[in-house]
């Protein structure tokens, strides 16, 4: 018996890793929704109404009530729908660890990787690469410690969804911006996990097309040089 999800609207941008997190979570839970693609240079009135503080995507609106910030939205999706699939672990300690790593990815991994990609000056680039490598090493060690298919164990969980940037966007940034970061010799566990994650039947169908994103990044890098 399908769950009645109510009215769900999801505002995103195709290339945004944060928006795709929400999309993956909605699909994993089997939630039906209406999607609105935003143009960030010309934001819709609805987006500005539903997220007046940050004016960003993703935004989820459930029965007229808006939510913003991807990790907040993920927890809501987990608590509100389909108890048969758990995005967060059950035990309070494991939950706290999952939240910690998701936040670490947002505050350290993604910004350091993005900085490394878009920094041109040699010395500064080396420094940025070092910082990104250190951040990714912590994630690598975490995977190694638990030795499961996913951060969430046998199934995709909060940290896997948060780390989707590492699995899909990071390699494209490496290719577009002449960056060497996630090598298989330094990060064997992250490599293996990336393969599992991007080939997962739900994830595979909910990532942005490779060529479009690569083209966008290449153009940006060319403009910087």
């Amino acid at each position: 018996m399908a769950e009645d999800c109510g009215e769900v609207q999801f505002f995103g941008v195709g290339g945004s890793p944060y928006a795709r997190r929400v999309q993956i979570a909605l699909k994993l839970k089997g939630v039906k929704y209406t999607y609105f693609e935003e143009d960030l240079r010309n934001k819709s009135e609805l987006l500005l109404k539903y997220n007046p503080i940050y004016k960003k995507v993703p935004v989820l609106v459930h029965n007229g009530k808006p939510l913003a910030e991807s990790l907040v939205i993920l927890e809501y999706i987990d608590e509100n729908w389909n108890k048969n699939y758990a995005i967060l672990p059950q035990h309070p300690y494991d939950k706290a660890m999952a939240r910690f790593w998701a936040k670490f990815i947002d505050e350290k991994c993604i910004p350091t990787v993005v900085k490394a990609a878009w920094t041109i000056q040699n010395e500064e680039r080396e420094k940025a690469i070092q910082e990104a490598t250190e951040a990714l090493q912590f994630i690598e060690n975490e995977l190694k410690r638990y030795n499961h298919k996913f951060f969430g164990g046998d199934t995709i969980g909060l940290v896997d969804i948060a780390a989707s940037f590492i699995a899909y966007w990071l390699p494209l940034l490496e290719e577009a911006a002449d960056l060497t970061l996630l090598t298989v010799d330094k990060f064997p566990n992250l490599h293996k996990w990336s393969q599992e994650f991007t080939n997962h039947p739900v994830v595979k169908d909910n990532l942005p097309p490779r060529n479009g994103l690569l083209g966008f990044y290449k153009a940006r890098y060319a403009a910087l040089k």
Partner: protein
Amino acid sequence: MGEDNSNVVLLDFWPSSYGMRVKIALQEKGVSYECRQEDFEAKSSLLLEMNPIHKMIPVLIHNGKPICESLNIVEYIDEVWNHKPSLLPSDPYKRSQARFWGNYIDKNVYSRGKKVWNGKVEEKEESKKQFIECLKMLEEELGEKPYFGGDEFGYVDVALVPFTSWFYTYETLGNLSIEAFVPKLVGWTKRCMEKQSVAKSLPHPHNIYDFALKYREAHGYE
């Protein structure tokens, strides 16, 4: 039948608003704990072992296992010692809003506040403007409710009230009157201070001020 309190340790630094959040949460739940003060110039081997990634307080060590990041710890406390009072609402949407505002406070209050008392002198007026803007946003969210949590003190109140121990410092070193801009928020502060959990967990504002002066002397303006 409650959770075992015998092995709860908090690694703290007394002027830290983040540490105060955890103390308030533990007090609200009636959890007894050992509080250990850290010295930032000489971090203990326990802190480095329990939080190797950020090397920061607060860290809650429960039965030997560390939990880091203050709002993460507050949620953990609420879930483990799940008797009343509840810090987070039970309704998923209200919970999401509480987390959203906790996150907003994390992103804005400390960094904007620090620029007011320790920022570049030439940027002071702009820093004050930004700080007040943030407080006004929070006052708007509070609205006419007694607490951010509604009728009951909750997660967002816990997230914000520690910073009020720094208000005297912001006002004195920043040369501004917070009450003039956000009177309702100041009213809320007084209401929170009537709660034992808050009164016991916040240092006297003058002690914070003395600390801030010494810090500025030692580190200069940033």
